[in-house]
């Protein structure tokens, strides 16, 4: 076996997908026209799979702040937060995040992925146990692998299963970190956080909630599921990203624990990465201020989410379990998902194609995500495209 032989399996998988009609997983956006439109394959296309929940990527104030930072502070920091990469903007953003969440402290990371790696590897060490929801994001799994703790999965959103596993740990449950997400990225369902917080308290464990898809989306002030469920005091650490509602790239963690500040010194993904560029920090700060000030964006987002979920239900598509800005259309096999994805693209609608092993149950998904930036006319066109494809899908021969 040579070092490169392992890629034969990847090539075989790629070939098998090509036979099912998947020429390429990646779709190239040739021109970005707005938060909700791009040119794909030369066609003006509505973007219904971007995580751009509040539609802030083209907000004039965010762009103005980013441009100003570019001129005043340059294109990059060229260094780690621990060395030359902490500018006044990074510190200000941390202060603003802490204030927004009503927490004692905040840390800014270079991406949401690194925020999970940096927090989880630092929090759970040798002798500790991590209990993670089986459907957690890859960044959470990778953060667990980077640390030295014992890692145990519990069934997705199954509080009884979590409780059983905590009970089995006995005294070790006090050294246990429970990991869940606010909104799960593939099916758009919320964690039963109130019940999880109660079990966490019963066993004296520590609770981390990844609010990547729920900040700006849930809660009266947009702080996420912990706010919506009324359990912010029970959550030990919140992790999140700037690459969804805040329309940029980067990640963060907030907490009331004074030890959060010490994580900076124990987190390799924080120490050994260049910090976010000044323009990213500037647009994120502006987007956070907009998120706080304009709750109507959240209302519009949910209006669009309800509308798409209802229409696709009427069309008898199999969807994720609850209404959410992530509307997952589920298929037992990739062929139907590919057929529908390609049909949608031909009709000028882009959604995410998700194939196993990235899907929770081994099936295939068309993952739609709506935005506050979608106009009623765009929502009409998305719904019409799905409706026109319903018959095509029903008439398609069953895959072998």
């Amino acid at each position, binding site marked *: 076996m040579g070092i490169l032989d392992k890629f034969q399996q990847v090539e075989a998988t790629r070939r098998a997908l090509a036979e099912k009609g998947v020429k390429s997983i990646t779709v190239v956006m040739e021109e970005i026209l707005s938060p909700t439109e791009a040119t794909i394959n030369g066609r003006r296309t509505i973007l219904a799979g971007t995580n751009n929940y509040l539609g802030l990527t083209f907000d004039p104030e965010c762009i103005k702040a980013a441009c100003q930072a570019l001129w005043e502070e340059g294109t990059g920091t060229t260094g780690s937060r621990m060395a030359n990469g902490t500018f006044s903007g990074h510190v200000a953003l941390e202060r603003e995040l802490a204030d927004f969440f009503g927490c004692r402290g905040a840390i800014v990371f270079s991406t949401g992925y690194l925020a999970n790696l940096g927090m989880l590897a630092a929090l759970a060490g040798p002798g500790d146990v991590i209990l993670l929801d089986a459907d957690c994001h890859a960044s959470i799994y990778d953060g667990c692998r980077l640390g030295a703790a014992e*890692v*145990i*999965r519990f069934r997705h959103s199954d509080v009884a299963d979590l409780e059983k596993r905590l009970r*089995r*740990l006995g005294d070790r449950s006090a050294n246990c970190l429970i990991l869940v997400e606010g909104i799960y990225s593939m099916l758009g369902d919320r964690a039963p956080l109130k019940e999880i917080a109660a079990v966490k308290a019963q066993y004296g464990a520590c609770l981390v909630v990844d609010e990547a898809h729920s900040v700006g989306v849930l809660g009266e002030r947009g702080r996420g599921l912990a706010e919506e469920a009324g359990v912010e005091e029970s959550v030990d650490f919140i992790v999140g990203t700037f690459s969804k509602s805040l329309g940029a790239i980067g990640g963060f963690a907030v907490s009331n624990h004074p030890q959060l500040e010490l994580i900076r010194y124990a987190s390799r993904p924080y120490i050994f990465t260049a910090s976010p560029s000044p323009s990213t920090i500037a647009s994120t700060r502006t987007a956070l201020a907009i998120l706080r000030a304009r709750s109507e964006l959240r209302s519009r987002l949910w209006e669009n989410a309800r509308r798409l979920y209802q229409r696709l239900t009427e069309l008898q598509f199999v969807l994720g379990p609850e209404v959410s800005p992530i509307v997952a259309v589920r298929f037992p096999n990739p062929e139907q998902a590919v057929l529908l994805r390609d049909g949608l693209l031909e009709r000028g609608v882009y959604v995410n194609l998700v194939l196993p*092993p990235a899907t929770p149950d081994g099936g295939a998904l068309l993952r739609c995500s709506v935005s506050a930036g979608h106009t009623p006319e765009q929502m009409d066109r998305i719904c019409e495209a799905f409706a026109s494809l319903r018959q095509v899908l029903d008439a398609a021969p069953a895959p072998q």
Partner: protein
Amino acid sequence: MPGYEEILKEFLGILKPFAKDGQRLDEQTDLVADLGLDSLRVMKLLVEVEDRFDVSMPLNFLPNVRTIKDFVLQLQHILGEGH
């Protein structure tokens, strides 16, 4: 606590539906190379073993497992620790 042979017998029973028709399973059967288990099926197998033995199996043990024998030895060790 059940012994190695008892765990092996039980595990072979759990593994049967994961094998191809007529495929012979023994201690040296490789879970990936012979049974073709991908990451999703490994996780499914793990859940079934956890239910059958009423135990939590840490994911950390997986890199040390290639064969049925490796899995059973790890499971025996975990059962001994009372997870």
